[in-house]
């Protein structure tokens, strides 16, 4: 019983961190049809933001607070300089953002060196849950992630901004014809997706080894989550991450991390075969039929 609870909690915190990364990817892909290969590096930047703040004498909490804003700002700049030039050019967007990911990684190596950095655990204690001790900080990660996921759903399904974003996702040209400023929406959404990744990186930093390669470790499961869950809906990221993250951490704990990789990839292949548009998949959008894909 204890073992099961521990496992569930570990899986939960891993799943929620993947959700943060995957949701950013889904939002950006949904709106701009850009596959952001640099998303893992935005996660990385979030973690290094904490490292930098601690290095400058600040504490972890300041770093955590700053990370989403700093990385969001990076997102804004990246969108302006790179991404907006490759909107709706599927292959180019992959190449451009991949190049960007390499550049960011190397910049981090130049700034902080290739070695891994330590971020101190900000809350040390553990909490007794149904007779099992569990680190408080991990519970904190789950709480933060849940809050942010909830907030993101609220933004996209309850706010005016979200309504506009959903209209652009459904039919970009028609939304523009109604006077919706699609350009501003793209910029804001990209920055928001980046901020989510930054926050995820920052909040995960104390329990990971912070090194220039850490982004990939989250980008891959996030991509798998979207493939399994479906890219057409925010809930796809949630469902996909639960399936992928859950399987990964449970198999890794019960068997071995290598076996977990094999199981996860095999499962992803099967899921994609059975649900080509994802478990929460949607039919192809019809809105583009008339307008074409000019911009």
């Amino acid at each position, binding site marked *: 019983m204890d073992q099961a609870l521990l496992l569930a909690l570990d899986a939960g915190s891993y799943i929620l961190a993947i959700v943060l990364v995957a949701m950013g990817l889904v939002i950006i892909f949904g709106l701009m049809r850009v596959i952001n290969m640099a998303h893992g590096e935005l996660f990385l930047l979030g973690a290094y933001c904490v490292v930098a703040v601690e290095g400058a004498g600040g504490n972890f909490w300041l770093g955590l607070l700053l990370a989403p804003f700093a990385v969001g700002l990076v997102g804004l700049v990246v969108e302006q300089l790179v991404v907006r030039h490759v909107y709706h050019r599927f292959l180019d967007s992959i190449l451009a953002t991949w190049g960007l990911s390499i550049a960011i990684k190397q910049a981090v190596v130049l700034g902080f060196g290739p070695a891994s950095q330590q971020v101190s655990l900000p809350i040390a204690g553990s909490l007794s849950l149904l007779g099992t001790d569990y680190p408080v900080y991990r519970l904190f990660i789950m709480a933060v992630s849940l809050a942010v996921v909830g907030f993101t759903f609220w933004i996209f399904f309850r706010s005016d901004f979200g309504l506009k974003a*959903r209209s652009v996702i*459904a039919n970009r040209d028609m*939304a523009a*014809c*109604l*006077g919706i400023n699609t350009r501003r929406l793209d910029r804001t959404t990209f920055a928001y997706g980046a901020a989510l990744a930054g926050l995820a990186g920052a909040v995960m930093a104390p329990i990971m080894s912070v090194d220039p390669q850490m982004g990939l470790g989250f980008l891959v499961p996030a991509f798998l989550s979207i493939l399994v869950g479906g890219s057409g809906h925010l809930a796809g990221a949630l469902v996909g991450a639960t399936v992928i993250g859950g399987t990964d951490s449970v198999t890794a704990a019960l068997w071995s991390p290598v076996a977990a990789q094999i199981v996860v990839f095999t499962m992803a292949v099967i899921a994609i075969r059975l649900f080509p548009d994802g478990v929460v998949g949607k039919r192809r959008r019809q*809105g583009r039929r*008339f*307008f074409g894909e*000019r911009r």
Partner: protein
Amino acid sequence: MLKVEEISAGYQGSRVLDGFDLRLEAGRVLGLLGRNGMGKTTLLRCIMGLLPLAAGRIALAGRQISGCHPYEIAQRGVAFVPQGREIFGELTVEENLRLGCLGRRQPLREVPASLFAHFPILAERKQQRAGSLSGGEQQQLAIARALAGAPRLLLLDEPSEGIQPSIVLEIAQRLKAVVRESGLTVLLVEQNVTLLRRLAEQVLIVEKGRVAADLPVADLDDEELLRRHLAV
């Protein structure tokens, strides 16, 4: 109100509009009639900024709009009801209308009651998914959504397409009421002569990307003339 000067445009090498000219006074309803492929829809897309011009210019109330982004053109007071309606099927009726309101230069958060007064069926179906509406209801939604942006100029592309005749008449009636009340300027592309007769005052016949004839709407009664311009 609208001035289209010598515009040319097309798709990938084929020129659909070739030196098209048009002048539309404020408060008028102008019909555009012509066979398929003659450039009527292309003209509307050019005005809306969805298609770049190869030559010429378009001005709205004295200010050039050609070269602007569609959302800027919309915010300057042009609304578009495209062929096929293009409503947001996954969103509710109310959300569709709210998007029209949010697209205004001064965004409006609530759908004005006057809009529902013109289209009572939409008030009834407010919370329904727009994709579940019938064709005629969807067309009314598309028109209402365009009007939600409080436009000065309304571009309508074949509003009667795929809708049963009795509903076409109803839509014509509602549109007429809106136009009368708001003094809206309308550019109406339509193959349905009945609808044109009900709404338009003047009709341009479009042929091969140019204006072939400019007629008062009463001339549409001339069967011989219609056959000459429209028969395939």
